[in-house]
């Protein structure tokens, strides 16, 4: 860990918030993609059965 001196709180907070927001965005994109793909597969299976 580098010595961040008197600005340790600011630097660590900036990194934590940014990486947290990026992680949220990636998780949301991935989760939505999975849900929509699953719904489409179920719908296509139902339509082809009919």
């Amino acid at each position, binding site marked *: 860990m*580098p*010595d*961040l*001196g*008197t*600005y*340790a709180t*600011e*630097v660590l*907070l*900036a*990194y934590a*918030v*940014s*990486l947290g*927001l*990026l992680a*949220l*965005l*990636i998780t*949301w*994109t*991935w989760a*939505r*993609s999975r849900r*929509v*793909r699953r*719904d*489409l597969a179920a*719908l*296509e299976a*139902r*339509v082809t059965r*009919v």
Partner: protein
Amino acid sequence: MASLWEYANPVKFMRLSNWLMPVSAVLAAALIAVGLYWGFFLTPDDYRQGATIKIIFLHVPAALMAINAWAMMLVTSLIWLIRRHHVSALAAKAAGPIGATMTLIALITGAIWGQPMWGTWWAWDPRLTSFLILFLFYVGYIALWSAIEDPDTAADLTAVLCLVGSVFAVLSRYAALFWNQGLHQGASLSVAPGTRMDWSYKGPLYLCMIGFVLLFVALVLAGTRTEIRARRSRALMTRERARA
């Protein structure tokens, strides 16, 4: 060489993005990881700003993508308005939440950086204010897509909103130069002669910037693929309802 317009075909777009998305994602992860490691652990403190200079490796790439995401949305919205290619409208829709997140990161890291350097979290400075307005445009853009049920009408109205918001995307980039006042400095990186930043900072910063561009590409491709599937689901449901 295949024409760019061929990728307006959802099937061709899905085929292309199927390999391009993971490649972009892996490259983005690698570049951001190396850039942030280099920037956080290996760069020296700035002689005036101390360790807060390390915030630049997140703040500048996020701000870059906040503006360029809107620029990409502008181009794809114009393609929708002129040529009515659905994939371009869906790509613009997918870019909205990504651009909003990038703008939020730029605003928050800017405030955290500004507090010890300027003595305040926020000032109604031209660049800060135009970025805040850009963020509000992103929120409005996302809300408008959600509020309108008919996808073509939503694409039309959001495209018009995107054209209007482009003024603030341009202002966000050039506000510091237009008004030449306020707390925010001008461009940190420039192709003009004269050293503005040492390579010990430029190296990791460029890596993070390229990484953020690739992350944006990967997320837009993933989001557009999701929107194409959602659109197909809606079409199938409508057909099913019509049959019943």
